[in-house]
């Protein structure tokens, strides 16, 4: 669900409740509304398993000395994952697949996704490693497909989350912290 759509339906609902408020209060409501939206969106991501508690750990590490910490780490995760997915694609495309190499890449991806809280990507890595052990190219390729899908999904969700945060900051608010 796209950010604009989420925002519009929420704002309409809020506006219908606060029909006669002043401009200042309305801005306050907009900020609250965006913050509430972000919290809601984040809660949905956790509930659907895209992110786990480790992501909250990352958020708690962010502070004034490093206000972009989460975005930086997640950007590194995107770069790292895309590189690994490419390497996996190439490795599985060889006539004689080096399953040890494939397993090493999956191990890296499991580590990174676990460290940022990308739970569904991490969970795809476990069966993948089993397929490597069985040295089965076909099942490995299926696992790789799964990983690509889950990675693209979580990337999209995280980018939406960051967009929401940017909008809150732009509106003059502070990013809500979830404990």
């Amino acid at each position: 669900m796209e950010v604009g759509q989420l925002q519009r339906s929420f704002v309409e609902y809020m506006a219908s409740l606060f029909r006669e408020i002043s401009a200042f209060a309305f801005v306050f409501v907009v900020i609250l509304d965006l913050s509430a939206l972000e919290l809601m969106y984040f809660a949905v991501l956790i509930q659907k398993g895209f992110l786990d508690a480790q992501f909250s750990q990352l958020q708690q590490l962010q502070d004034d000395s490093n206000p972009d910490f989460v975005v930086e780490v997640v950007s590194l995760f995107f770069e790292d994952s895309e590189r690994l997915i490419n390497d996996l694609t190439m490795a599985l495309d060889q006539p004689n697949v080096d399953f040890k190499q494939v397993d090493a890449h999956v191990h890296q991806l499991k580590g990174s996704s676990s460290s940022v809280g990308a739970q569904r990507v991490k969970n795809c890595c476990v069966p993948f490693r089993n397929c490597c052990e069985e040295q089965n190219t076909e099942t490995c390729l299926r696992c790789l497909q799964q990983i690509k899908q889950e990675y693209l999904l979580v990337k999209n969700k995280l980018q939406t989350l960051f967009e929401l945060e940017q909008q809150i900051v732009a509106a003059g608010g502070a990013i809500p912290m979830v404990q």
Partner: protein
Amino acid sequence: MDFCSSSSSTISSHEEPHVLAVDDNLIDRKLVEKLLKKSSCKVTTAENGLRALEYLGLGADQEHSTNNNGSKVNMIITDYCMPGMSGYELLKKIKESSILKDVPVVIMSSENIPTRIDQCMEEGAQMFMLKPLKHSDVKRLRCQLMQCQ
């Protein structure tokens, strides 16, 4: 009662402990560095065992006298699974060194394998921790390092 020992790894409460963090994964390196800095530690990172040993002055071609980084490091925290030299092999090299054998070495791993844990503890590891590390894990480590209540 005296709470300070004469080993080089003890620090007083107003000093920042210097930790060497070793991990081949860039994201994990960034995370462990942030976690340690948040617990008021000075951090140096290394991407593998060889680089770590070089930093500590234990590299293959190094003379101990030209590098005293080792004596400044209060703790080493290393990942277990690394290409080339594993965290376990790094632990062994450190414990074999007359200069560094008393520096506490913590091993991190994403896998909870009892034989692996036993192996590391028997070789003299201070602690074995499961990844991903949490703020509470690092706080606990920090307290241990401080040897204070």
